[in-house]
């Protein structure tokens, strides 16, 4: 909340009150050793604030305290705070606390002449010394005004009292009833000038909200806003929900959304841890399913998750998620998942925030789901809801908790109906109904996702018995197709493919046949050629044989002739 540098510079010593959240907005507590004024109308929690200051001081900070009650008797007071777990009697017995009831009964008192309040001083001084008190509460000192008539003396004495308290070095809380147009009915703020805290209890639209504001705090930084606070079994919880600076720790760790195909769209890794995710969509687009998936995934990682349901009961959600194949019940049983279902109208916006804040502080989840934030509008207007969400997101980011809001958008034809929080969140998914071809289908877009690659494409979002799926939409010649049109187109594609396949097959066969035909033709020609070649060879052979025979004959003839010639010659010679 405050940087270390500033803390060092801070001079004013402070006494921590121990009141949840209060020490954070005052950066340490009330001014130490000085009186502070706590004022407000009847029933705003002044007495509780002051008693908690005393009790916590005694129990947690080892600073004994004196509680001077002008209104309630010590026993009544002790009985009243038992419900808050404060055992006053025990603390009194242990000399940690001293209760002193200053009873002023108007009817018993006469005033005559000069007097002073030394009696009170002595009493107080005695009480302080007897337990070495460091803290003092005067509740409500203005009762003196109703008991005593001499205002001149009273005012002078009060001034002296506050100075005396300062001299004593005790941290004092003085309570005062709120007056018409003034902080206190008798102008106590005139005397207590160091720190003034105003408590307020307002009822708007039949819903009550308690608020606390630091009107002034001399010599110290402090939050100046009105902070809602809650009174419950643990006492007061103030909500320092608006941090003064934006110096949150960030991590670049990524966590899965639980839907693999959605992670794919987010650069393959999912959301950043500690980021805020807005899930907006019209009715019935599956916001709760996506949120439940995210919760489920968180529990699967063995991380705690709180699911704030403003519309459905936990049983309803568990049952409904079972229908899409998700078992949330086992996470509830193992204690990883906690549902907190409440009607938005149960209490005011601020109170919702306080309750959320408290639960988160207690349960320490890693993931928080709010489903849906738009229902909160029923108890406040848009700007209030936005203010609350800013504070919630601030707080969650400080705690490194990932948060997913769902928001119902009314279909106005534009996608920019985002509850005005889109600029605050880190990632924004938009779920939409796409009406096409006589049917409604769900589509998911990532409107933004800071600091990471994310798909710019629209995906068809399908809810099946086995969970959620994101399907690539069909980009055909007719544009983006979705739902049964996409399916039809897919079928068409498929049959086209089949058709093409059989067509090819047929052509293949024809070619085959042609080849076979040609082959046969080739064979026939070959055989024809063979036979012709045979014939030719035959005729060659015959010719050769003929030639040989002729040759042989001629040879034999010539041989014969020469022999006859020889014999003739022989004969002649002889």
């Amino acid at each position: 909340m405050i940087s270390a540098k500033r803390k060092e510079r801070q001079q004013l010593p402070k006494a921590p009150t121990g009141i949840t959240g209060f020490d954070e907005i005052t950066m340490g507590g009330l001014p130490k050793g000085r009186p502070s004024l706590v004022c407000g109308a009847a029933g705003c929690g002044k007495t509780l604030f002051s008693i908690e200051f005393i009790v916590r001081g005694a129990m947690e900070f080892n600073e004994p305290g004196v509680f001077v009650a002008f209104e309630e008797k010590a026993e009544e007071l002790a009985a009243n705070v038992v419900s808050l777990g404060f055992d006053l009697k025990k603390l009194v017995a242990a000399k940690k606390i001293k209760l002193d009831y200053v009873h002023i009964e108007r009817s018993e008192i006469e005033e005559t002449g000069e007097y002073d309040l030394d009696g009170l001083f002595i009493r107080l001084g005695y009480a302080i010394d007897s337990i070495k008190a460091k803290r003092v509460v005067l509740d409500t000192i203005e009762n003196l005004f109703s008991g005593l008539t001499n205002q001149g003396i009273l005012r002078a004495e009060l001034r002296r009292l506050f100075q005396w308290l300062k001299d004593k070095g005790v941290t004092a809380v003085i309570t005062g009833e709120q007056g018409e147009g003034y902080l206190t009915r008798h102008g106590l703020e005139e005397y207590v000038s160091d720190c003034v805290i105003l408590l307020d209890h307002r009822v708007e639209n039949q819903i009550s909200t308690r608020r606390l504001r630091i009107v002034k705090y001399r010599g110290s930084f402090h939050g100046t806003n009105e902070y809602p606070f809650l009174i419950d079994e643990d006492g007061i919880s103030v909500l320092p929900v608006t941090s003064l600076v934006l110096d949150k720790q960030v991590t670049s760790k990524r966590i899965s959304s639980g839907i693999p195909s959605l992670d794919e769209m987010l650069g393959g890794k999912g959301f950043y841890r500690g980021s805020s995710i807005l899930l907006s969509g019209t009715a019935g687009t599956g916001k709760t399913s996506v949120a439940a998936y995210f919760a489920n995934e968180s529990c699967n990682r063995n991380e705690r998750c709180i699911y704030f349901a403003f519309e459905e009961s936990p049983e309803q959600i568990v049952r409904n998620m079972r229908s899409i194949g998700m078992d949330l019940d086992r996470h509830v049983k193992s204690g990883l998942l906690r549902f907190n279902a409440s009607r938005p109208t149960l209490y005011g916006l601020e109170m919702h925030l306080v309750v959320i804040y408290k639960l988160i502080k207690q349960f320490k989840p890693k993931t928080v789901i709010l489903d849906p934030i738009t229902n909160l509008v029923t108890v406040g207007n848009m700007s209030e809801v936005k203010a609350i969400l800013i504070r919630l997101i601030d707080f969650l980011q400080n705690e490194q908790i990932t948060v997913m809001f769902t928001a119902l958008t009314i279909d106005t034809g534009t996608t920019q109906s985002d509850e005005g929080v889109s600029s605050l969140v880190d990632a924004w998914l938009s779920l939409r109904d796409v009406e096409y071809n006589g049917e409604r289908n769900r589509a998911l877009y990532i409107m933004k996702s800071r600091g990471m690659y994310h798909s710019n494409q629209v995906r068809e979002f399908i809810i099946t018995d086995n969970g959620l799926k994101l399907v690539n939409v069909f980009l055909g010649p007719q544009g983006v197709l979705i739902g049964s049109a996409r399916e039809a187109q897919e079928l068409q594609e498929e049959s086209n493919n089949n058709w093409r396949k059989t067509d090819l097959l047929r052509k293949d066969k024809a070619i085959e046949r042609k080849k076979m035909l040609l082959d046969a033709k080739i064979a026939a020609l070959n055989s024809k050629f063979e036979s012709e070649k045979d014939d030719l060879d035959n005729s060659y052979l015959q010719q050769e044989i003929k030639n040989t025979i002729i040759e042989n004959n001629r040879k034999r003839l010539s041989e014969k002739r020469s022999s006859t010639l020889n014999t003739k010659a022989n004969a002649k010679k002889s």
Partner: protein
Amino acid sequence: MAKEENWELKLYIAGKTEKSVTALRNLRKYCEQHLKGKYQIEVIDLLKKPQLAEGDQIFAVPTLVKKIPEPIRKIIGDLSNEEKVLVGLNIIPVKK
């Protein structure tokens, strides 16, 4: 008017201040005048006995406390207004 009653009076003071001295002087004077012989005055100095302040619900000084006779009355101040003191002590019943 008072019968055979005894006035038990306590005067709480815080040290010997001008106011407390005046108060005691005034008180003694009224008692001598109106309650001679049937009163007791106890002066309690809270500076010495601060623990006694709580019992009688003292917050201002000087305070005169009359417990007996009933009803309890507290008279705050230096008791300079005789009539108020006497009414407060039930010595004279009503204001003139």
